[in-house]
């Protein structure tokens, strides 16, 4: 069965390594912070200038001067640092953030990603996404495998305006965990109960499937 948003987030969190600095995009990526495995700690970077983002504040803690990149009120953990936007993106662009997790409209077999603009609809802007995909060492894209009409989002070539080129290596969808290398998607894991055939049917880009594809473990 296809994963829920929470399950996608859980699978993402399994990828976190102890002592990693992680930037989580809005939506499913942010949910992953709730599922960090026991014994593992990560520090969250929020690109508006906060390293060591904590949980949402209590009513008493709410402070208009303390927000995250999604413009939500947040707190800081003990040992957090706060800095300017230039410093924040020096970290990001300079490759100091270990993991970036973000959503996308489309990903292709070359590791290209489209996530910020659908021509004809209003453009809201790329925010920090282009810097994040250009700078992060490891990027995981989370998205549904296909759109609501059943069209695959894993393509041979992205059709929408790009956010970055040649930068995505891992995708976690509601159906599968895939790696991008050598111009193809490689199926690494299936969502529990989802068949290889369903994944093949919903993957438009070149897909390589090994003989034995394990199910995700939760």
């Amino acid at each position, binding site marked *: 069965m296809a994963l829920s948003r929470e399950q996608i987030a859980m699978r993402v969190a399994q990828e976190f390594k102890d002592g990693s600095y992680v930037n989580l995009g809005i939506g499913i990526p942010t949910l992953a912070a709730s599922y960090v495995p026991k014994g593992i700690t990560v520090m969250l970077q929020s690109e508006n*200038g906060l390293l060591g983002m904590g949980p949402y504040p209590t009513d008493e803690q709410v402070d208009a*001067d303390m*927000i995250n990149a999604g413009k939500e009120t947040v707190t800081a953990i003990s040992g957090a640092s706060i800095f*300017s936007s*230039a410093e924040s993106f020096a970290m990001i662009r300079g490759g100091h953030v270990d993991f970036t997790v973000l959503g996308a409209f489309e990903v292709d077999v070359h590791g290209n990603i489209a996530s910020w603009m659908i021509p004809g609809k209003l453009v*809201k802007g790329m925010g920090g996404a*282009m*810097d994040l995909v250009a700078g992060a060492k490891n990027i995981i894209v989370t998205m549904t495998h296909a759109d609501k009409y059943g069209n695959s989002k894993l393509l041979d070539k992205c059709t929408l305006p790009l956010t970055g*080129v040649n930068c995505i290596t891992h995708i976690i969808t509601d159906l599968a965990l895939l790696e991008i290398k050598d111009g193809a998607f490689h199926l690494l894991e299936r969502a529990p109960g989802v068949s290889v055939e369903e994944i093949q049917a919903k993957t438009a880009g070149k897909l390589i499937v090994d003989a034995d594809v394990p199910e995700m473990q939760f």
Partner: protein
Amino acid sequence: MSGFDKVVSSYEEAMAGLEDNMTVIAGGFGLCGIPEGLIAQIKKMGTKGLTVVSNNCGVDGFGLGILLEDRQIKKMIASYVGENALFEQQLLSGELEVELTPQGTLAEKMRAGGAGIPAFYTATGYGTPVGEGKEVREFNGRPYIMEESITGDFAIVKAWKADRYGNCIYRHTAQNFNPMAATAGKITVVEVEEIVEPGEIPPSQIQTPGIYVQRVIKGSFEKRIERRVTRSA
């Protein structure tokens, strides 16, 4: 040291010299850390044809959004503009020009502008619409695009405290783009919550040295919250 006293007592003085078609760089991220009173003064002055450089353009009725009401902004340079119906309307009708710029590139353009660096290379935006028409150059086998710096006729900045010499500190994440904006204005105006005496802020804690600042004004702030999210205690 009266020659270094940057404090002005009215918003008229604070924004004196702002003229039609000038470029204004504004600090702030969303509605966090924005110079509310200086923006209100620009609205009051009715200055038109402005190019505004800011990560966002406020929301309907608050922040830089209020400058859209009388169509004072000709061009907006920003990374994200998605919270504003009036913005959308003026963009679609062609009244407003928008130059979308990746957030990190925008921050760096301001810093470079203040630091006398006319251009720099970044991988951000290469191969995307942002890179179109820009020079591409390889370093160590990776392609980068050249981005030019930004300076403004005015920079409008929100700080927490400033001393009379213009030395500023920022509060929490209300820092954001403010320190870079402060360096990039021909005239930099800082609106603060509190004015303190020189020496009250320890020298190493000063985040914007007064050399970048021409005017300081004490404001009062609504500090509207865009997305109040809480957890139970």
